[in-house]
């Protein structure tokens, strides 16, 4: 349940078992603390509401202030069926409400997810307000307007041999506890599935997640729909619990309360919302009735919230976990901080074959014609013709401002060309998306590290490998990560290729710079690309690191097609068979390293005119 770990703990069902035990123990233990059953029931409903929200916010990083819209939708659909429409089965009505909320969530997600970060949050706020208004006004025939829908019945279960009637207070608790338990079990599976891993990648670095081949929009939408489903079911439970479905469910304050509870309890933990709700509701009761503070309880809560956001990023659960870690001391054997000198291994090109060329395509792997990019009046690239054959290692050099990075960006389709065409393995990829291009076998390692910072080395590579093994979008929500065929193998092979096997369980933040660069390359390698682009792989490295990295690249380059940009001309000339020189957006000259060294035009481009040729 720790959002930063993709691979599950050593004891797989511990969390589920503990949850079940705790839920069963509650009605026996809590009455000793004067806990009212209705408060406990409410906590469970908020907790369930929050599970979905935590998947959306804690795991995927999407802060939505609009969950109330879906909570209300599910709740009112279920309540309407059970009251006005006279539908007999409570549980079925709840499920229908959930489905309705999921559908609405899908439609809302299509609109809201077009934007990210703050704009996304703002759209969700607007949506929450609109839904509230619609419930109140145009649809008040169905929703009862300000009155809400009273008279929602409680569920009963006919087991054949016995009839279980769940009414109120402790009698309703088992039903709610069962719903919560099921909700947690499902959520845990989702979070431990490949989809869960991708969601976390999106939270850490959406740009890279897309670049390694995942359809991030599809996954975001999935998370949104999951959150909507949980919200809808919880909304229905609210109506059942109170015998009445209130319009407050749609209020923006409901969304706000959910966000605060999740942050207080701990985001990205699945149980955070439950803890947060406990804190909120118990504080509310305690401060209001016992201390007789009246309306001031909210001030105390607000202060607690601000303090937690400032100092305990992962809320109460995170704080407890840190405390636990502190008390137990670090047990993990640390790998040495200074990495041992890596011994370049022989290329294992056979075990990690490049993508199969379609129809046994012969001819150039990459053919770019007339490639041009203008930014307003500035011509970053002008009329570039470029060709790379299979198995080549090509270098690209050029003075600053020559347009090298822009060129790469066009090749990976991060940036659409103003004119020109790119053909990759015989297929026109001009105007495609980064994700599709990666899936076709073209990847890049970035000049500035684009890693998944809170994940470990192994998890980083796994994300890339998952895209290669599963395609750009797969809804394998309930499959365990360990059941993905070939994942372990591929991850180990990639780690071996970039010499990070010893550091596999280290979080990225603890890596040395050189190791991070290797991981950066590893991410691009994990999908076994047919064409690997490397944007300044040697940037910021010490001379010794350069030597090592060049050896590494040589071993990687065996049997692969690579294009490398770098400023370190000596190292590049060692590595590449052919070199292209760019200047001011155009191709200046192309040839072997020796030819380039002796070329007068190149010297002039770099040094602004030189006399005396070597």
């Amino acid at each position, binding site marked *: 349940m720790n959002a930063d770990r993709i691979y599950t703990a050593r004891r797989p069902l511990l969390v589920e078992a503990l949850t079940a035990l705790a839920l069963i123990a509650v009605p026996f233990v809590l009455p000793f603390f004067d806990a009212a059953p209705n408060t406990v029931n409410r906590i469970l409903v908020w907790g369930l509401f929050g599970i979905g929200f935590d998947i959306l916010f804690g795991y995927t990083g999407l802060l939505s202030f609009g969950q109330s819209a879906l909570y209300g939708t599910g709740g009112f659909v279920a309540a309407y069926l059970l009251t006005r429409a006279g539908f007999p089965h409570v549980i079925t009505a709840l499920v229908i409400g959930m489905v309705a909320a999921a559908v609405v969530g899908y439609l809302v997600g299509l609109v809201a997810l077009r934007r990210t970060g703050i704009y996304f949050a703002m759209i969700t706020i607007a949506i929450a307000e609109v839904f509230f208004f619609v419930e109140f006004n145009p649809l*008040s025939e169905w929703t009862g307007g*300000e009155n809400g829908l009273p008279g929602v019945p409680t569920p009963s279960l006919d087991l054949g041999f016995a009839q279980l009637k*769940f009414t109120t207070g402790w009698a309703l608790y088992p039903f709610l506890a069962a719903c919560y338990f099921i909700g947690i*079990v499902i959520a845990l599976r989702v979070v431990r599935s490949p989809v869960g891993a991708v969601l976390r990648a999106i939270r850490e670095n959406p740009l890279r997640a897309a670049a390694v081949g995942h359809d991030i929009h599809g996954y975001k939408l999935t998370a949104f729909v999951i959150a909507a489903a949980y919200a809808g079911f919880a909304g229905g439970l609210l109506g059942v619990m*109170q015998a009445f479905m209130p319009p*407050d469910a749609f209020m923006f304050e409901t969304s706000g309360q959910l966000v605060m509870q999740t942050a207080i309890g701990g985001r990205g933990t699945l149980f955070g919302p439950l803890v947060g709700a406990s804190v909120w509701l118990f504080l509310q009761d305690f401060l209001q009735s016992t201390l007789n503070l009246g309306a001031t309880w909210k001030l105390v809560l607000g202060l607690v919230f601000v303090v937690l956001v400032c100092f305990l990023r992962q809320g109460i659960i995170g704080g407890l976990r840190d405390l636990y870690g502190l008390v137990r001391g670090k047990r993990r054997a640390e790998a040495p901080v200074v990495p041992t000198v890596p011994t370049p291994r022989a290329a294992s090109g056979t075990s990690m074959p490049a993508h199969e060329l379609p129809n046994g395509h012969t001819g150039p792997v990459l053919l770019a014609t007339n490639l041009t990019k203008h930014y307003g009046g500035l011509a970053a690239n002008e009329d570039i013709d470029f060709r790379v054959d299979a198995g080549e290692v090509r270098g690209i050099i050029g003075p600053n401002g020559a347009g090298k990075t822009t060129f790469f960006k066009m090749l990976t389709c991060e940036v659409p060309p103003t004119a020109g065409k790119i053909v990759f393995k015989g297929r026109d990829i001009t105007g495609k998306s980064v994700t599709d291009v990666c899936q076709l076998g073209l990847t890049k390692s970035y000049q500035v590290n684009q890693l998944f910072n809170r994940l470990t080395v192994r998890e980083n590579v796994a994300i890339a490998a998952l895209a290669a093994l599963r395609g750009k979008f797969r809804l394998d929500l309930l499959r365990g990560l360990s059941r993905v065929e070939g994942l372990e193998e591929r991850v180990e092979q990639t780690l071996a290729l970039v010499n990070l096997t010893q550091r596999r369980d280290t979080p990225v933040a603890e890596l040395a710079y050189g190791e991070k660069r290797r991981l950066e390359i590893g991410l691009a390698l994990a999908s076994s690309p047919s064409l690997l682009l490397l944007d300044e792989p040697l940037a910021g490295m010490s001379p010794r690191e350069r030597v090592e990295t060049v050896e590494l690249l040589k071993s990687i380059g065996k049997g692969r097609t690579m294009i490398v940009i770098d400023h370190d001309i000596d190292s590049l000339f060692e590595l590449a068979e052919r070199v292209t020189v760019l200047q001011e957006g155009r191709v200046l000259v192309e040839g072997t390293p020796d030819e380039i060294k002796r070329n007068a035009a190149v010297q002039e481009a770099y040094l602004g005119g030189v006399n005396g040729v070597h």
Partner: protein
Amino acid sequence: MDRKVSFLPRRRVLSAGLGLAGGLALPAYVRQALAADDNGHPPIGTWPEGVKGKEVFIGVAVPRTGTYAEQGEDELKGWQLAVEHINSGNELIRKISPKTKKGVQGKELKLVVADSAAKPNDAVQAEQRFITENKVILMTGSTSSAVAVAMNKLAQREKVLYVTGISGSNDTTGKDCVRYGFRQNFYGETAANAIGPVLLKAYGKGKKMAFMTPDYTYGHTVTKSTSEYLKEHGGWQMVTNQVSPLGATDYSSYLTNIANSGAEVLLNVNWGRDAVLSTQQAKQFGVIPKMKLVIPYQIPFLAKNIGAELAEGVYAATDFWWTLEDKYPLAKTFVDAFRKKYGYYPEWGAENAYMSFAMWADAVENAGTFYPPDVIKSYEAGRKLQSMVGEVYFRKEDHQLVRPVVIVRGKAPKAMRNKEDFWEVTEIVPGAGLMQKPDAFGCKLGEYT
């Protein structure tokens, strides 16, 4: 690291959890069945648990924050005074509930109070807590009809009696009526039927009217009842109905529309703070006194907040006004007692609160027990009670008190005898003729048990 996932434990855990959880339900039922009987009745709601001791609790969910906070605090004072009087066997209480000696059935009354902020959800949450923790034997509280309706349903489900606070919507004893709920005050239909003839007499026929309506069913009901009466009996024409959200602060766009509508009479159905703001801004936009202002459903403290100048000549329909002390001796006793304790003349919210408790005490004493179905039947017996506005009785078909509606008109500032003498009572209209037929609004009372 081998990661073999075994299925069995998971399924076992699931089923064990469910099984045990189901088993948990049993103790609750068993407990209930074994509870002591009283008079041979099985336990129901919070009875007889809640009346075992020397005290009985009453749960109050009232707005202490938000748009209706001022009115809520006033209501609360009424309940508190009533509890004080009942516990001490005060003379005033015994005039209304002759069988009362001290307390109710000898038990002392205690209030537990929570802030509802006029939100149905918060009110229900609080009262549910009161039921479980304090075993309240009676619930009250509402200033918004949304709360009253929600509380009606809660009362019926939990089998705990509920008397409304202020509730003006037709629905509370209309389509949302319940066996366990009772309403004391006047409402949209009776207000409209009472104030209609007065307006026609004062302003004549064929006028153009504009409405300001708060956007929820209380507002829509009152606007509908009032406009229909005036249209049908006086040929008045509604030229505009400006609907604003509850809690709106800026009425400029609505008032601009009204200013350009050609209306001659402005009927403001807004309530609480909304009424104060909208009326003040109406003056700022020149809408009043160009148009005549009418308040079809009066708000406690309105006149104090908008000032006597704005209130002058304004017609309003209300439940009670303190100058009725000149006409009804019980009113005088009440007003004196309230003033002595709180230092100001009571508004109709406080009076409503006091009366509802007094009548409940009467119902219980006449039933001789707290057993809810008997208390309900005691209410439904149609006993005539003495109140601050004369003789009243409950209608058994919909649990609505049959009582007069008071029409008031704002006094000119120089005619005020003291600084709270805002309104002049012009008419007291008997209730029976104002009410709809018992089943006209779709009331279907539920079960007794």
